[in-house]
């Protein structure tokens, strides 16, 4: 067993190359507002620019095939890139985007050659930003209960309906989504998976007001939106995987979104910040970290975060070593969600009301702790609620249904 990526001399040289490159190309004033809704448009554009440059280097989606705009690099190299950008508190991509990791993965598996050539290079090179549109008012946990329709009309589909909890601030170039292509077909056989340009006439985007819009970590999603489709005319070319094959296509990104992707980077910014704060801030004349009550809870946080890290690492390894997965994807997602919720309570105990404000003088860690209190609650639901992760786990364990469910195809 080996819990660390091993680097050859060549790979170490690659790390130096990445590090140097990032030093040169990283905007100087990158900021990480605790609540990603506060990220400015200017900052967003800087991150997009960084993404495009990474894309040009083949470092944005490093392991994706070169012929579709990826880097064609090894897993270890992709880990190196992730680790190096993690030092800046950023992820790959450095902004909210569901194109490369989720939508792109589905197109890679299910798209036609023509579609791959058309969509993927722009995604992989960071030229476009992509949103996923999954939830609807009546399709939450029951994701297949889609009401929005795409009805064939000549060479196009006419799309009508509404999607919620979508995306981020500042719009998207593409939106991929599930739409009912055959209203008369049975469940799961009535859907089409579409890649829709964001600028088509008839699309309206309206922000939603929420406790927090999500987005722990550096990527920063900003606000969530409702997206309305009013007789939007989408070319048939944008249907991926064929008519009524949408659910099958979706299994790929759902699998990834349910935690199967995993994570190799070791850093946990939230925990680092918390520990740093407690070491450097006093309570009753000594660092908070010396207070027995606080210590107990800090260890609780650490234990939770270690398990989450290890589950993420395991899944990352399983995915990249092509070890067959069963329940591990949703387990990772479920554990992380509930663990965050538990950690939020521990932190509330440790910090007291300093965890409840982003007041510049009083809010712990410039309000990052306050944002975490909110995001831990709201983060339980996106991308399959905690309950849904357990539904999937049970099926994969082989107890939820007659026949044990297989994990979705990832590549």
């Amino acid at each position, binding site marked *: 067993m080996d819990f660390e990526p091993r680097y050859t001399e060549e790979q170490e040289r690659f790390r130096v190359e990445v590090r140097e490159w990032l030093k040169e190309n990283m905007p100087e004033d990158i900021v990480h507002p605790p609540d990603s809704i506060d990220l400015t448009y200017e900052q967003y554009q800087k991150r997009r620019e960084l993404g495009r440059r990474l894309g040009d280097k083949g470092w944005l989606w490093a392991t994706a095939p070169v012929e579709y705009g990826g880097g064609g690099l090894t897993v270890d190299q992709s880990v190196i890139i992730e680790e190096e950008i993690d030092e800046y508190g950023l992820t790959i991509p450095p902004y909210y985007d569901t194109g490369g990791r989720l939508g792109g993965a589905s197109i890679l598996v299910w798209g036609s050659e023509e579609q791959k050539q058309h969509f993927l290079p722009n995604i992989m090179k960071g030229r476009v930003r992509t949103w996923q549109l999954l939830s609807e008012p009546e399709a939450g946990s029951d994701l297949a209960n889609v009401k929005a329709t795409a009805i064939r009309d000549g060479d196009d589909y006419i799309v009508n309906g509404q999607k919620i909890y979508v995306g981020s601030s500042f719009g998207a170039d593409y939106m991929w989504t599930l739409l009912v292509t055959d209203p008369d077909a049975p469940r799961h056989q009535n859907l089409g998976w579409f890649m829709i340009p964001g600028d088509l006439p008839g699309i309206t985007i309206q922000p939603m007001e929420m406790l927090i819009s999500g987005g722990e970590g550096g990527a920063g999603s900003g606000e969530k939106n409702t997206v309305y489709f009013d007789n939007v005319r989408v070319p048939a070319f944008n249907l991926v995987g064929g008519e009524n094959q949408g659910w099958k296509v979706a299994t790929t990104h759902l699998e990834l979104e349910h935690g199967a992707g995993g994570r190799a980077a070791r850093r946990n910014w939230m925990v680092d910040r918390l520990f740093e704060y407690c070491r450097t801030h*006093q309570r009753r004349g000594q660092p908070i970290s010396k207070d027995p009550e606080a210590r107990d809870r800090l260890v609780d946080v650490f234990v939770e975060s270690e398990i989450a890290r290890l589950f993420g690492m395991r899944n990352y390894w399983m995915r990249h070593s092509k070890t067959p997965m069963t329940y591990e994807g949703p387990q990772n997602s479920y554990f992380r969600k509930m663990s965050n919720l538990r950690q939020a309570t521990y932190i509330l105990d440790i910090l007291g009301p300093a965890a409840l404000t982003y007041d510049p003088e009083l809010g712990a860690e410039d309000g990052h702790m306050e944002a975490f209190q909110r995001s831990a609650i709201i983060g339980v639901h996106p991308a399959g609620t905690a309950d849904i992760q357990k539904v999937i786990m049970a099926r994969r364990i082989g107890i939820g249904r007659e026949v044990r469910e297989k994990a979705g195809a990832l590549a």
Partner: protein
Amino acid sequence: MDLALTPDQEMLKSVVHRFVQQEYPKETLLEIAASGSPTPSEPWSKLAETGWLGIAVPLEYGGEGGTLTDAGVLFEELGRGPVPGPHITSGILGVFTVLAGGTEEQKREWLPLLARGERTLVPAVTEADYGWEQEDVRLAAHRNGAGFRLNGSKVYVFDANSASHLLCAVRSEGGDQVGLVTVPASAPGVEVRPLPGFSWNMAEVKFNDVAVGESDLLGLSFDSGWDALQWAIDRTIPVLGAFQVGGCQAVYEMSVDYSRTRVQFGTPVGRFQRVQDHIINLVNHLDSARWTTYEALWKLDTDRPAQESVHLAKAVGSEAYHQACNYAHEVHAGLGGMTEYGLTLHTTASRTLYHYLGNPRFHRLRLADALGL
């Protein structure tokens, strides 16, 4: 043994229930939350007119002379809102502190005004360390002729944003005693700075060379201030507990209704055991809070030794409201996070009340002492 409310209490309950429904509907609560301060406002004026702010004020001082259980009934219904404003801070904790620590003259000055809501007196105790022990009070009252001067700040002061006056815990010149002084929020040098975020009406209060008169010192002495405050806190805790019970009850009802009407996979989601379990966890927290609170109210009303019960009620009640909201979010998933739905009003309130007057951990440690361990 009789665990029912009296007919009078039942009537009070239903009157308050209707009042909250009418005067503090969700839309009003959302507006107030967005505005940053629950007072002044039309519903608050109406609340003051009812006389309920004087429920704990003895009849002789112009109040309702209610029992603590009466107060519990009232605040449980206010908790369903959750109705914001300095009702507990001033109407219960402020009132009890003045009752316990004020001179007869101070009582005659303050209590009728507090009962009518013409003044509100919000205790300001905690500082940067956010501790509820005497040693955590650092702000000093420096002698200055016939009075004192205050320089420093109180932080995380609940309801300071809607106080007409603050009842400020201050250290005596020598440093070995803690007394309480009343300070108008509008006094020169007082700055009340609301703290933004996932908090419910918390503010920092800065004192910049604020002059306080000798007669503004509660009981005219530093001797008994802290004890008076402790006595008042013990009596306030189960009333706050009742407020939290009301909050739990509201999110419980929200969750039950939603689980009966929200359809996914062709069936009301309440038919799924996982959703049921969230609601069962919620109702177990609700009832744990309810009965520990009620018993504490009863013990205090009947002059039984109540120290254990008080700590138990705060530990259980605050944990309950916090967890009840988390479970309610699990039942509602995405919708619960939307501001307009109203659940987050409770979630936000529960976080601040979790700490107010000492968090569950603080009271568990004190419970160990009270149990003679």
